[in-house]
């Protein structure tokens, strides 16, 4: 792959606006994601982080604005036209979204069975390889219902990468996991970037995870991008809204609503 192509963003959102009923989720959001890098999108719950991911994969369409994947406009494509693009992306859903009528192995083999002509033996080999990558060897015959939350996320990740995608979209990959398991997921994200050179977009509100995996962090607030920088920049940023989110402090209006006084932070 040439250098010039490497510098072109693989995913680009141009002035995307989206509204659900009375709720304006995005107002003219523009974002370009470089190839081979991990971009973390942070923001409060309900700010539209998952909605952003769903725009990238075409599960949602913008009310106005454009979405590009590898130089090709995708927001105006129909489901059939999106198939070749979606094959190049893996989506890790927040709760895994594993098919509970299938075993773990069948889940991981599903994209292969749908999109490739591989034989059963070849598919078994891919399944075993992906399970090994996520550290769950031998769990193939189990059902998703028999797995813990962390295991489900890892199986879902194995399924998301079974077609060796160029882009992996992670929707809150560490939410609901204990710190140790959350770190396993972080290491997996880094490993995929290192070994398969995937471009990752991680949506999270877990700052530990964000600092660990990000090449770049973007913060969404009230439908706009209010901060965009490296993890180091975020660690020292003085902007009050960003600071409050990064440090995990409630905002004064919320505390007032609860009849509490804001704590003296000693600043």
């Amino acid at each position: 792959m040439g250098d010039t192509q490497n510098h072109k963003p693989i995913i680009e959102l141009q002035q995307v606006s989206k509204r659900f009923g009375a709720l304006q989720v995005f107002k003219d959001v523009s974002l370009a994601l470089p190839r081979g890098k991990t971009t973390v999108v942070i923001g409060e719950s309900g700010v539209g982080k998952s909605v952003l991911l769903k725009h990238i994969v075409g599960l949602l369409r913008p009310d106005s604005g454009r979405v590009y994947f590898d130089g090709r406009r995708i927001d105006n494509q129909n489901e059939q036209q999106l198939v070749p693009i979606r094959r190049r992306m893996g989506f890790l859903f927040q709760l895994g979204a594993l098919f509970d009528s299938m075993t773990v192995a069948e889940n991981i083999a599903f994209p292969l069975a749908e999109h490739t002509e591989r034989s059963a033996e070849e598919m078994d080999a891919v399944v075993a390889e992906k399970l090994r990558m996520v550290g769950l060897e031998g769990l193939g015959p189990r059902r998703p219902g028999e797995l813990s939350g962390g295991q489900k996320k890892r199986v879902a990740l194995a399924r998301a990468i079974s077609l060796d995608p160029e882009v992996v979209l992670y929707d809150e990959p560490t939410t609901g996991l204990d710190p140790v398991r959350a770190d396993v997921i972080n290491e997996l994200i880094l490993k995929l970037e290192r070994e398969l050179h995937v471009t990752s977009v991680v949506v999270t509100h877990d700052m530990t995870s964000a600092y660990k995996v990000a090449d770049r962090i973007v913060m969404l607030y009230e439908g706009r991008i209010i901060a965009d920088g490296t993890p180091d920049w975020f660690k020292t940023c003085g902007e009050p809204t960003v600071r409050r989110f990064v440090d995990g402090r409630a905002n004064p209006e919320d505390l007032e609503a609860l009849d509490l006084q804001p704590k003296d932070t000693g600043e």
Partner: protein
Amino acid sequence: MSDAQAGQLPRWWSWSRQLVDGLGSFWVFAGQTAWCTVRGIVRLANWRLLTPQLYEVGYRSLPVILITGAFVGMVLAVQALAQFRAVGLEERMGAIVNLSVVRELGPVLAGIMLAGRIGGALTAEIGTMNVTEQIDALRSMGVDPIRYLVAPRVLACFLLTPMLTLFADFTGALGGWFVSVVQSGVDAGPYWDYTRTAVDNFDLFSGILKGAFFGAALGLISCYKGFYCKAGAEGVGRACTSAFVTSFIVILALDYVLALILNSISERLWGFQSLL
């Protein structure tokens, strides 16, 4: 129109708008399902999706359909017997009981039974897949959920409801015969003779045709309700209730329309035939 404007308009306006919206998206959904079914016939992988649905809708429904049919025939015979006997026409009972079963009650009750047994399960299954993002997961992997989930389920209902209707007709006829001939001593010879003159192939055909319409309707409605259900366990529960109630009403309404059409066809082709 903005939501602020909608808030000032009378409630019937927003209801009727919702109804038109819902009907529109239902027909789009039905059209996509039909298109996927027609286009998907040539792919072997799609037939593999159909087989488990045929098993679930057909084979697993058979016992309840047989029982439903038998009781329908028996109850009809019990109600009719006293009246026919009072006017001394009990030998002609076979005509009325069997014609009612084959033309109306067999297909309608088989349809309603399936709306409860299959429809509820379909809505719950697809609805749960919807709220746990499994349908989004399918789409994100470039798999059309209508082709993968909906088309085989609707096709199974469409193909097998007519066949199950025949089974309900069969046990219905047995039930009517049991009550009339075995229990109440009506003469078996004339009972079946009158049945044979009254029930012809067109009656059987109209029952089967109705079954096909009911099967397609209950399959489409149940899948549609699951596909667009609201979030959470409550959303799935409501979708199931709504799927059954809607299927029930649509089956009865379709039955009325089809009865009018089929009767007028039959009269035009063979003229009016009195049973008594």
